[in-house]
């Protein structure tokens, strides 16, 4: 039998719609910019706040899209319960896990974790600009803890992307850029 020819670019199928991709890279850039403008670095308070509101708006849009968006954008497409997630993780460790066109179960939970930590950082950051919560220590501590949680999650997210790309011969970074993946085997 002749070897399978490589997938032509035109054969790749649409997976991530434009809103998913804009939200993903927008939030990614926003997280980087919010660190840069934070008090730890350049301390550009006004830009820090603007960036934070932009991130919050992107996540809000993405969550609404998670209810009404295209197939793989929907939360119901990739949020699965703990039992199925654990079963997937076990298959992954055994090297027998199936390829998912959208998020795999672990990727889905990573998306939720990143959104939760990022949105929480935005919320506590906004609280700190209100007269009621400005200067309150626990608000500041929570803001910083959540921001560091994002910093902790991002390398895990990237590791998952690299691992899954290698395991299933996908380029998930390219897929998030042009929205397309190789069709199901």
């Amino acid at each position: 039998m002749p070897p399978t020819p490589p997938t032509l670019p035109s054969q790749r199928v649409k997976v991530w719609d434009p809103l998913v991709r804009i939200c993903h890279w927008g939030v990614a850039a926003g997280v980087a910019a919010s660190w840069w403008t934070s008090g730890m670095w350049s301390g550009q308070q006004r830009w820090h706040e603007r960036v934070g509101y932009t991130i919050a708006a992107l996540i809000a849009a993405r969550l609404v899209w998670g209810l009404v968006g295209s197939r793989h954008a929907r939360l119901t497409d990739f949020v699965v319960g703990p039992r199925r997630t654990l079963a997937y993780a076990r298959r992954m460790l055994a090297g027998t896990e199936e390829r998912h066109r959208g998020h795999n179960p672990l990727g889905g939970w990573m998306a939720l974790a990143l959104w939760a930590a990022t949105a929480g950082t935005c919320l506590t950051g906004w609280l700190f600009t209100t007269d009621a919560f400005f200067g309150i220590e626990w608000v500041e501590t929570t803001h910083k803890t959540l921001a560091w949680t994002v910093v902790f999650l991002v390398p895990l997210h990237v590791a998952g992307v690299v691992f899954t790309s290698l395991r299933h011969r996908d380029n998930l970074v390219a897929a998030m850029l042009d929205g397309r993946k190789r069709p199901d085997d």
Partner: protein
Amino acid sequence: MSDAHEPTMKNIRLFIACAALGLATYGAQAQHGNITCAPDAPKAEWRGQMELQKTLEGRGWKVRQVKTYNNCYEVYGFDEKGARVEVFFHPKTFEKVAEVPQG
């Protein structure tokens, strides 16, 4: 061999150039992290945080939080006009050293 490695070397040089530019920009920024008030004064000579708070309250401020940041006292609160302020003070002279503009 050199042909195959040429693009990689180009990328590495490009990366180094970008990193250098980034670092230069970073160095040019006014950073909170760089705010310094009394680098040479031993902490034993610092006046107390409570004293700073009382001084500011005497001016009509409402103080929410005072903490040490680098070698400064960082104060969060409301000034005599009721505006939110985040100000860095010299821990010995209580002079205002820097202020974070509030959005």
